[in-house]
């Protein structure tokens, strides 16, 4: 189980008679490009769901149900002029979307998709993902700084400030999961839960139930999704930190944002909703892995759907409300839930709510 896809590589390598290192290269590249594709599909999903909420049709001409709209969008982005304002540092302007892309590159390395479909099993991968999300904040700041416009810089500074403010309650609610499972790697946290819903960590404690909602709010804020999209506020600063970016550079920013939402909802479903565990243990081998993958994608898709719905239903928070929410509300509540979880674990000796009720 620790070896991930290596036995799979060895089977194929024995069949084709090459060493399995090029296979590792090919598979990791395929994973990254698949995540890129999922980000692009996310734009289509967003347009369709927002159209549903607003009682209109959405894209329905390009392909069946408008499914190939993202290909048309990609072609349009490629054919646009690459504008750059005069007097702007061209190296910084070029490098800023790369930070966003590097965030999802490092995220795909540690994500567990099933028992054997993962690239690296790295202890402390949950905290690694949190640390890597700061790279995206730096990318937003650089994008705003290199834009050459004051409004872009303002959007970039607000974006970086929002990122760092919401990282504290995120890590504290991650601690309450670390207490329950005793592991910090995503694979380990997954194996500490089982398939049945009452073994998920969200139902372990009343305190971890609240922690889940704090985590959910923080991940929406970390990826600049509405109602936290002040850095790219569409009606205030035109487009915030990515006003001056056109064509492929904007495409990288946008797709990295959607992919990051996918990554982060996958992490939330692994941490709280039981991950890829199946409820029944009848299956084995390849069928088991495929079913686990489907289970994980169903849970991730549900969270992704809710994140998209929240964007189109809730109004945007102001700058001072953002900071107030994070430091005055979320951090104290997260600390309270952490202390509560720890007390529960001490007094009930690690049993979940279900097990305590069964005992009575």
């Amino acid at each position, binding site marked *: 189980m620790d070896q991930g896809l290596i036995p799979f590589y060895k089977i194929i390598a024995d069949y084709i008679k090459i060493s399995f290192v090029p296979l590792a290269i090919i598979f990791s590249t395929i994973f990254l490009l698949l995540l890129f594709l999922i980000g692009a599909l996310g734009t289509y999903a967003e347009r369709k769901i927002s159209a549903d909420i607003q009682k209109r049709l959405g894209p329905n001409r390009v392909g069946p149900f408008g499914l190939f709209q993202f290909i048309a969008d990609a072609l349009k982005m490629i054919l646009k002029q690459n504008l750059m304002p005069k007097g702007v540092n061209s190296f910084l302007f070029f490098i800023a979307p790369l930070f966003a892309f590097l965030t999802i590159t490092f995220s795909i390395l540690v994500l567990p998709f099933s028992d054997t479909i993962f690239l690296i099993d790295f202890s402390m991968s949950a905290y690694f993902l949190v640390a890597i999300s700061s790279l995206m904040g730096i990318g937003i700041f650089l994008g705003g700084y290199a834009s050459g416009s004051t409004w872009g810089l303002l959007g970039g500074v607000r974006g970086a400030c929002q990122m760092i403010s919401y990282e504290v309650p995120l890590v504290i609610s991650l601690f309450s999961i670390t207490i329950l499972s005793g*592991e910090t790697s995503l694979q380990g946290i997954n194996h500490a839960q089982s398939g049945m819903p009452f073994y998920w960590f969200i139902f372990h404690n009343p305190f971890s139930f609240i922690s889940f909602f704090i985590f959910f709010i923080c991940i929406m804020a970390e990826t600049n999704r509405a109602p936290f999209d002040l850095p790219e506020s569409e009606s205030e600063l035109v487009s915030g930190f990515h006003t001056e970016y056109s064509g492929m550079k904007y495409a990288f920013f946008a797709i990295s944002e959607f992919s990051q939402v996918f990554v982060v909802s996958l992490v939330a479903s692994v941490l709280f909703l039981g991950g890829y565990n199946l409820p029944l243990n009848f299956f084995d081998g390849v069928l088991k892995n495929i079913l686990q993958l489907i289970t994980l994608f169903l849970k991730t898709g549900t969270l992704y759907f809710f994140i998209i719905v929240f964007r189109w239903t809730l109004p945007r928070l102001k700058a001072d409300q953002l*900071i107030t929410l994070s430091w005055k509300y979320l951090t104290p509540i997260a600390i309270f839930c952490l202390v509560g979880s720890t007390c529960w674990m001490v007094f009930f000796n690690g049993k979940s709510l279900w097990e305590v009720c069964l005992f009575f």
Partner: protein
Amino acid sequence: MSKMSFFLFLYLPCFAFLFYIGIHFLVKKVSPKNKPGQYQDKVYECGLVPEKNQQKVLSIRFFVVAIIFLIFDIETTLMIPVFKEFKNFNTQGEGFFILIIMLSFLFVLFEGLLFCWKKGDLKWIKD
């Protein structure tokens, strides 16, 4: 860290970098040349002509938030190993001991947050 993880940690960022540069080269060939227009090299400002260059604005409030975040970041990083081993200690019956340790650690830093709250550092609109 196994050799495979080391290798993938090396390889995938390099691939991401090359992918980024490669796509930009491809796009450069396909995209139209920049035709000189009147406002093309100026920054967008809702239809007006921008008068000043980029002003490096920063309110002090952002800096205060960054300082508070740094302190809390170091605190949470120091707490990671203790929380990771909590479950082991709990099964051996020493969970209460760690609870007291972590309570005092968290309380001291929560007091710092309360100090900043009461002194108005987290307040963004000064009445």
